[in-house]
């Protein structure tokens, strides 16, 4: 879910995962079996991990600890008969990426299903190593696995691992170095299928020329899948359809199958049933259960978190709790940072005492102040909210939220998985947009992408918190009240997501909801220490870099605008006056609207820019905390209605530049990107105007 350079950047496209000098190894497996954790353990890298299916949407690449082997972490997939974009990516890499070895990672608590993928991977002719991961979890659940027996039956090297505890790491690295085996057990299909496949295989053999497994391709072509056919044709460099001999053989083979009563659907069932039966056969006797299968504790927790009466209240309570910790926890580091920056500013001032006024002004009043503001006021809440949210994710709560929210999303003709991408949006909208790849249906995926920025991302929290703290909540229970109000704002964002989704699916993105399956993984005790250390070290540093990179030039621009005069008035005054009428209608002022526009690169710089613009207009203002800021803003004519308008517009306006670029890349359509920018802006403007009208009428 994280906002990191890899999740918001170009992502590692398959083609860019260049083969080094050493072997190329792919890490494949069902969703949520701990592939990313294993990847991190093998490479020493820090892919974001989380307890839900479909978290890895882009392939990540890295070097193994030996410094030679290139390792690729593929998105989770249940089978090589792909259905969604990320599964296609995984399948294409295994089948056509020519990896030297494929490590198939299985979940020890759910081994039969993993075997399904193992057997399918063996069929492609790949050299396979099996990693039975989550061994520690299986032991806790009273499941024991006879690894030597498995290895013997499969004809493959099998290594038991517990990636989060580094167990089995050395053995797995050894097995990878040994290269795995291509002599694994092959599934035997019903005679009719075998006969048809053999016919096609005979024709394919010469054409494929050892570049891929002819039997596997023959089986796939009997039940053609357009995306696989296209990938295979690209890889082999010839068209199957243009090849007359192949075409007629395929037609004859399919006809033969039909005569046996195997239409495409029956054929598929027969093929998969054979694989499932083989997988069951492999596991029978090798896996034994000391306790009843299925964790009673998990079921009890599910009863609580997804129960009719408790699900929604608990969801709100969790959200409010996290927000309360964020609001309360952010105060102290924020004050410390403000003090530190004040001291630094005095030092900087005296160092520049000999410099010309404009240089001192541009550097200290322009660049330094905005950067200091971003770091001291905006960063602490971001650095606290994110790890807290990651802990929820690690524990396995997010899929439950999607499960509970599927019904309302279905009513908006969307997919329940949109709840997952919406949750990712709380961290970062750009990451949320990339995450939409977990949604199979293109229409539903677009719905989720276009509405992602309706939930406030981490960068907008601090603005919301500052507004609430300064103008709405006061008194003894201020932080609890702030958390509650903030929860209200989030709920409003979720409500707006539903409204916008419904609106879109009634207009530009009409259609009926498609199917939906979602895995509810076992609850896990979150790895608190690791989550906190990693998110503070990796993410905070990244976010800090990005904000500073955006804030420094913005500070300079504002300072210049406030000090360069045109016709007796500053450029800033001109701009603000130009924007003022529209802004007033929404209960804002020209300066605030200008700050929102200049805040396009990163939302966390909006408020600092506005403050900077006000102070540069002549008022004397030290750095100071929120109390000083409140009096400054009040002097500029701010009231609680201004604060609420700012909150509404912050919640609903155009997404930041990173998100827009991501939307452009993910949707491939400039029109959809424009719509994604216009939609929240229209919602936000309308909400502000209506709010201000209502206040005027009532008050």
């Amino acid at each position, binding site marked *: 879910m994280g906002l990191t350079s890899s999740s918001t950047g170009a992502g590692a496209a398959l083609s860019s995962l260049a083969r080094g000098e050493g072997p190329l190894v792919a890490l494949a497996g069902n969703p949520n079996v701990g592939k990313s954790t294993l990847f991190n353990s093998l490479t020493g890298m820090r892919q974001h991990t989380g307890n839900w299916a479909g978290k890895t949407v882009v392939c990540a690449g890295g070097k193994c600890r030996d410094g030679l082997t290139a390792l690729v972490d593929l998105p989770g997939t249940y089978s090589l008969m792909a259905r969604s974009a990320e599964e296609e990516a995984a399948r294409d890499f295994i089948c056509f990426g020519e990896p030297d070895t494929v490590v198939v990672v299985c979940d020890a608590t759910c081994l039969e*299903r993993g075997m399904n993928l193992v057997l399918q991977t063996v069929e492609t002719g790949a050299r396979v190593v099996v990693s039975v991961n989550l061994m520690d979890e299986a032991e806790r659940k009273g499941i024991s696995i006879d690894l030597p027996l498995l290895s013997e039956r499969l004809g493959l090297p099998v290594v038991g691992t517990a990636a989060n505890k580094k167990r089995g790491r050395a053995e797995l690295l050894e097995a990878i170095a040994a290269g795995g085996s291509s002599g694994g057990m092959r599934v035997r299909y019903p005679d009719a299928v075998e006969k048809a496949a053999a016919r096609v295989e005979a024709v394919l053999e010469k054409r494929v020329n050892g570049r891929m497994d002819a039997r596997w391709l023959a089986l796939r072509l009997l039940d053609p899948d357009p995306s696989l056919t296209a990938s295979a044709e690209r890889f082999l460099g010839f068209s199957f359809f243009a090849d007359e001999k192949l075409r007629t053989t395929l037609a004859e083979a399919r006809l033969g199958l039909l005569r046996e009563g195997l239409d495409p659907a029956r054929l598929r069932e027969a093929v998969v049933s054979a694989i499932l039966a083989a997988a069951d056969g492999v596991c029978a006797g090798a896996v034994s259960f000391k306790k009843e299968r299925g964790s009673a504790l998990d079921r009890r927790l599910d009863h609580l978190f997804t129960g009719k009466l408790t699900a929604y209240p608990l969801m709100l309570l969790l959200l409010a709790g996290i927000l309360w910790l964020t609001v309360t926890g952010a105060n102290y580091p924020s004050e410390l940072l403000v003090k530190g920056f004040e001291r630094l500013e005095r030092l900087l001032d005296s160092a520049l005492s000999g410099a010309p006024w404009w240089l001192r002004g541009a550097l200290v009043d322009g660049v330094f102040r905005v950067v200091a503001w971003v770091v001291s006021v905006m960063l602490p809440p971001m650095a606290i909210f994110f790890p807290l949210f990651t802990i929820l994710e690690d524990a396995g709560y997010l899929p439950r939220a999607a499960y509970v929210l599927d019904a309302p999303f279905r009513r908006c003709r969307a997919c329940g998985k949109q709840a997952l991408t919406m949750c990712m949006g709380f961290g970062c909208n750009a990451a949320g947009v990339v995450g939409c790849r977990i949604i199979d249906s293109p229409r539903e995926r677009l719905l989720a992408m276009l509405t992602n920025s309706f939930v406030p991302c981490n960068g907008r929290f601090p603005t919301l918190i500052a507004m609430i703290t300064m103008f709405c909540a006061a008194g003894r229970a201020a932080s609890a009240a702030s958390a509650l109000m903030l929860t209200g704002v989030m709920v409003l964002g979720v409500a707006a997501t539903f409204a916008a989704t419904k609106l879109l699916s009634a207009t530009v993105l009409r259609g009926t909801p498609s199917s939906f399956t979602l895995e509810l993984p076992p609850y896990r005790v979150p790895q608190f220490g690791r989550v906190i250390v990693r998110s503070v070290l990796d993410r905070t540093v990244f976010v800090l870099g990005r904000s500073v990179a955006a804030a420094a030039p913005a500070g300079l621009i504002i300072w210049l605008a406030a000090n360069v005069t045109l016709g007796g008035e500053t450029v800033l005054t001109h701009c603000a006056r130009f924007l003022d009428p529209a802004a007033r209608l929404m209960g804002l002022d020209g300066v605030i609207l200008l700050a929102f526009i200049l805040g396009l690169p990163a939302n966390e710089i909006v408020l600092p820019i506005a403050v900077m613009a006000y102070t540069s207009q002549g008022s004397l203002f030290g750095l100071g905390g929120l109390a000083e800021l409140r009096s400054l803003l009040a002097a500029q004519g701010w009231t609680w209605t201004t604060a609420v308008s700012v909150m509404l517009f912050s919640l609903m306006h155009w997404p930041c530049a990173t998100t827009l670029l991501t939307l452009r890349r993910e949707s491939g359509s400039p029109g959809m990107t424009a719509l994604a920018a216009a939609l929240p802006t229209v919602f936000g403007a309308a909400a502000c105007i209506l709010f201000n009208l209502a206040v005027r009428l009532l008050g």
Partner: protein
Amino acid sequence: MERQIKMCSLRPGERAEVVSVEAEARMQRRFLDLGLAEGTEIECVGRSPAGDPSAYLIRGAVIAIRASDAAGVAVRVREGGKWA
């Protein structure tokens, strides 16, 4: 005694055996991926607050499936309580 019903009619706590899977191609493929095929034993383990989707234990994993999708799966339940 046995009775045959749709998978979506299973009540939480009830276990059953899959008799047949009818679904459009993509959904069928997804069911098969999850290991939901003829003969598979499943258990309904819960319902979401709105009553749909429901959660099913399939081959050791809990999967949420909407009623409209589960309607295509016919299952056999032993009458008089839980699957032995």
